[in-house]
C-alpha cells in the first residue's frame, strides 16, 4: 500500500503528456472513459456472437453469410459446426456478463460517478484504480485470445459446469479452458481492486454535508454493488482456480471418478453467480432512479425505502443461489428453502418498481432520451422480474429449466434491464464525459426501434421455451415436437438481426457526437447532482476547493427553488448553514 497524496487545490494540474493523461491515467474520469470504450467494444463482440447464434437457430444447416472467413474447425461449407455453436453460446455469455455489462455498469459508472457525485477529488487509491482497468483489459484480451488457440474457446457454457469443463477428454477443449480460468482470475482481481476503491471512497471521501442519506441512489447502488463484488468475485476466483488445476495439474476437485464433486462446481459458481446477478442490475437501478427523478421533476418517491430495498436485495442475493440448481439433484428440502428466499426478493424489487412509478405519478414529465430509456428499463425489468418468479417456484421451474424461457428471462433483465439503463446513463452523462450532447433525435429513434425489436426478439422466446425448446440447442428442427415452432425461431432471428442493426444508430450517435455533437451547457438536464457544479468535461482533480453539500439530491420542484424547478445540492440558500466537516489534520 502506498500513501496517496492529496492537496486541497487539485483542479489545476501541470499539463501532462498524452500518455499520462489518456492512457496511463490515474484520473477516475479518464479511467471510466477507458472502461467505456473497452467494454463497448466487447459488447460489440458479444453481439456479433449472438448474431451467429440467431442465424443457426433460425436457419439451421444454411450457410452463414460471411462464414467463409471462419476456419474449417468452426464452419464447414459455411455451415456452423455443433462444436462452434456451443462455443458461440458459451463465449456470448462470458463476454456479455464479464466484459460488457459488468464493466459498463461498475467499471464505467462507479469510477466516473462516485467521486463526482459525492464531491471527492478522486478515488481513494488512484493508482489501484488504474491497475484495476489494466487488469480488466488484460483479462479481456486473454479471453479473446482463446478464439485463436487450437480447439478454440470453452464449450461448457458460460457457467462451466463440471465434469464437462474439468475434463479435457470430455470437452475437447484444452488451452481455451485454461485461458478462460486465467482470464476470470485476472478479472476477479481487477474487480476486487476496483470495488475496495469504491467502498473506501464512499466511506471516507464524501464532501462535507454529503451525509449517508444525502447520497444519490446511484451512489448507494454502486456502493452496495461494490460490497457484493468484493465478497463474490473471490469465490469465483477460487472456483476458476480449482477448475484450472483440474485441467492443468490433474487435481480431482470436480471429477466424480476420483471422489470429487461435480455439484460442488455448481455450488461455487452460483454462490458467486447470484450476487453477480445483482452486481449486474443494482447499479442500473440506482442510475435509473436518478434519471427518473430528473425526468419527472419530482423528488424520488420513498428515498429511504429505495436505499433499504437495495440493501435488502443485496443481502437476500447471498442466500438464493440454489434456485439455479433445482434440477441438479440437490436435496429437494433445501430446494424449498431456496424457493422461499428467492420469492422474498420480489418484495424489495417490487418496492423499487412501485417507487419509480410513484415518482412518475403526476410528475411534470420530460421525455428526454435518458428518461425514455429509464422507463424502458422499468417496464422491461418488471417483465423480467415476473418471469423470474415463475422459475423461483420449484414446481414451475422443473419443466421450464434449461429452456428458451430462461434465455428470455435473462435477456429481459440483462438487456431489457441493464442495457436500457446503460443507454440512459450513457446519454445522460455523455456531456459530463465529453462536453457535448448526443443527438436527441437519433437517440429517440434508437430507443423506440430498440424497444420494438428487442421485444420482438425476446418475448417469443418465452413461448418457444414453454413449448419445450431447450437452450443451447444446436438444431431445433431435428425434433418433431419442436418443428411447429420453427417459424417463431425464424421470426426471432429476423428480429434479432434488426435489433443488432438498430444499434448502428447508437454507435453512430455516440461516435459522431464526440466531435460534432452540440456543445453541452453546464447543467444540460437541470439536475441537482454535485457533478453539474463542474464544467463539462470536468478537470483532473474535479473541484478546486472541496465543495459543500447543502441538501439531498432530489429537490425537484421545491418551493425554495424560486423560478426554477430544481435546487442543486451545491447551491447555498440564505437559510442554509455550512456543514461542519471533520477537523482538518494539523500538519501534512
Amino acid at each position, binding site marked *: 500500500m502506498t500513501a496517496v497524496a492529496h492537496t486541497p487545490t487539485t483542479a489545476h494540474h501541470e499539463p501532462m503528456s498524452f500518455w499520462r493523461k489518456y492512457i496511463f491515467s490515474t484520473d477516475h474520469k479518464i479511467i471510466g472513459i477507458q472502461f467505456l470504450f473497452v467494454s463497448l467494444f466487447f459488447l460489440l463482440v458479444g453481439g456479433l456472437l449472438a448474431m451467429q447464434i440467431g442465424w443457426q437457430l433460425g436457419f439451421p444447416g444454411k450457410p452463414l453469410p460471411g462464414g467463409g472467413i471462419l476456419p474449417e474447425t468452426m464452419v464447414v461449407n459455411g455451415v456452423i459446426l455443433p462444436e462452434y455453436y456451443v462455443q458461440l453460446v458459451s463465449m456470448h455469455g462470458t463476454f456479455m456478463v464479464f466484459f460488457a455489462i459488468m464493466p459498463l455498469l461498475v467499471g464505467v459508472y462507479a469510477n466516473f460517478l462516485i467521486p463526482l457525485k459525492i464531491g471527492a477529488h478522486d478515488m481513494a487509491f488512484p493508482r489501484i484504480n488504474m491497475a484495476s482497468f489494466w487488469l480488466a483489459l488484460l483479462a479481456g484480451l486473454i479471453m479473446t485470445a482463446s478464439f485463436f488457440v487450437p480447439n478454440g474457446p470453452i464449450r461448457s457454457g458460460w457457467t462451466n459446469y463440471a465434469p464437462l469443463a474439468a475434463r479435457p477428454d470430455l470437452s475437447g477443449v484444452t488451452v481455451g479452458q485454461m485461458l478462460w480460468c486465467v482470464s476470470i482470475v485476472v478479472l476477479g482481481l481487477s474487480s476486487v481492486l476496483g470495488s475496495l476503491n469504491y467502498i473506501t471512497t464512499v466511506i471516507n471521501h464524501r464532501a462535507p454535508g454529503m451525509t449517508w442519506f444525502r447520497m444519490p441512489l446511484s451512489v448507494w447502488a454502486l456502493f452496495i454493488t461494490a460490497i457484493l463484488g468484493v465478497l463474490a468475485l473471490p469465490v469465483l476466483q477460487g472456483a476458476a482456480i480449482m477448475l484450472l488445476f483440474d485441467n492443468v495439474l490433474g487435481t480431482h476437485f470436480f471429477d466424480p471418478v476420483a471422489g470429487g464433486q461435480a455439484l460442488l462446481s455448481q455450488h461455487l459458481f452460483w454462490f458467486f453467480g447470484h450476487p453477480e446477478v445483482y452486481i449486474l442490475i443494482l447499479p442500473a437501478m440506482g442510475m435509473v432512479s436518478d434519471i427518473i427523478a430528473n425526468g419527472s421533476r419530482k423528488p424520488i418517491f420513498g428515498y429511504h425505502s429505495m436505499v433499504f430495498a437495495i440493501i435488502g436485495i443485496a443481502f437476500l442475493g447471498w442466500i438464493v443461489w440454489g434456485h439455479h440448481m433445482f434440477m441438479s439433484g440437490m436435496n429437494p428440502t433445501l430446494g424449498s428453502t431456496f424457493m422461499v428466499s428467492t420469492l422474498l426478493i420480489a418484495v424489495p424489487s417490487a418496492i423499487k418498481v412501485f417507487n419509480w412509478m410513484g415518482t412518475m405519478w403526476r410528475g411534470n414529465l420530460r421525455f428526454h432520451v435518458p428518461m425514455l430509456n429509464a422507463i424502458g428499463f422499468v417496464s422491461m425489468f418488471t417483465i423480467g422480474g415476473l418471469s423470474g418468479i415463475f422459475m423461483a417456484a420449484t414446481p414451475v421451474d422443473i419443466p421450464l429449466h434449461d429452456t428458451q424461457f430462461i434465455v428470455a428471462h435473462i435477456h429481459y433483465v440483462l438487456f431489457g434491464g441493464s442495457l436500457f439503463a446503460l443507454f440512459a446513463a450513457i446519454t445522460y452523462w455523455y456531456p459530463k464525459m465529453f462536453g457535448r450532447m448526443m443527438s436527441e433525435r437519433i437517440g429517440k429513434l434508437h430507443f423506440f426501434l430498440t424497444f420494438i425489436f428487442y421485444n420482438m426478439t425476446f418475448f417469443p422466446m418465452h413461448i418457444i421455451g414453454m413449448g419445450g425448446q431447450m437452450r443451447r440447442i444446436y438444431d431445433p428442427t431435428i425434433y418433431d415436437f419442436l418443428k411447429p415452432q420453427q417459424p417463431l425461431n425464424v421470426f426471432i432471428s429476423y428480429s434479432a438481426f434488426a435489433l443488432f442493426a438498430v444499434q448502428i444508430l447508437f454507435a453512430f450517435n455516440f461516435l459522431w457526437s464526440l466531435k460534432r455533437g452540440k456543445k453541452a451547457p453546464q447543467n444540460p438536464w437541470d439536475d441537482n447532482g454535485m457533478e453539474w457544479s463542474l464544467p463539462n468535461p470536468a478537470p483532473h482533480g474535479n473541484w478546486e476547493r472541496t465543495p459543500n453539500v447543502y441538501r439531498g439530491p432530489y429537490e425537484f420542484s421545491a418551493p425554495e427553488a424560486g423560478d426554477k424547478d430544481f435546487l442543486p445540492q451545491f447551491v447555498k440558500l440564505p437559510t442554509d448553514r455550512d456543514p461542519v466537516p471533520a477537523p482538518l*489534520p494539523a500538519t501534512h
Partner: protein
Amino acid sequence: MTHATQALDQMRPPYSTEPGSGVYSNKLGMWVFLASDVMFFTALIGSYIVLRFGAPGEWARPGAILNVPLTGLNTFLLICSSVSMVKAYAAIADGKKYFLRKVPGKRLQDGGLKFWLLITIICGAGFVSVQVVEYIKLVGHGFTPAGYREGSLLAEHAAADPIKYGLTVAGLYGSSFFTMTGFHGFHVTCGVISMLYLYFTKVLPEKYSPQDYRGIEVIGLYWHFVDLVWIILFTIVYLI
C-alpha cells in the same frame, strides 16, 4: 494503543470531508481487501470440507504423509514473525526508526523499526523456504496434486496399508493439500515482497514517523491475517 489514536488525525485525507469511518483510507482499504480474501479462502477451505465429508473413503491419517513436526516448527516461525511485526509497529509508533540501540542499564540492545521488520521478513522468507523444501520432498516421495504417483515409494506404502494412507481419496487429498497450502504460500510470498519493498523505499530512508506509519500498519494487518489463515490451515490440513 494511545499512539495510534494520536496519529489518527494526521492520517486523515488532507482536505475536509464528512466524518467517514474514523479510519484512514489505506487501512480501510486493507480491511476491505482482507474481507475479500476471507471469501477466497472460504471458497478453498469450504470446498475442502465439502469434499472431505462427502468423500467415498477415509482421508490419510494425520502424519502418515505430511511431516507434522517440521510444519509445526514452521508454524511457530510464522507466529514469531507476527510478534516481530507487532514489535515493528510499536517501535515506529514510539518513534524508534533505528536498527539497534544501547539502553543504559540493560544487557540487550533495544530494537527499532529497521530491526523488527527485518526479523519479520526473515521469518516470512524462512517459512516460504521450508514450505518449498517440503513440497519438493513430498513430490519426490510420490505425493502430487493428482494423488500418489504410480510406481513411487508412497504408492507402494499406500498399496500395503490403504487405510493409513487413505488410498481411495488420494487424489482429493493431493488436490486440496497443494491448492490450499500453495495459495497460502503465495500470500506469504506477496507479503514478504511487499515488506522488502517497504524496507528499501520507506524504512531504510526513514520516511516513517510516529505521525505517519501507514504502510507498516497496513502491511501488519495483512501479515496477521495470513498468519491466522495458516493456523486454520495447519489445524485442518495437518492435524485433523
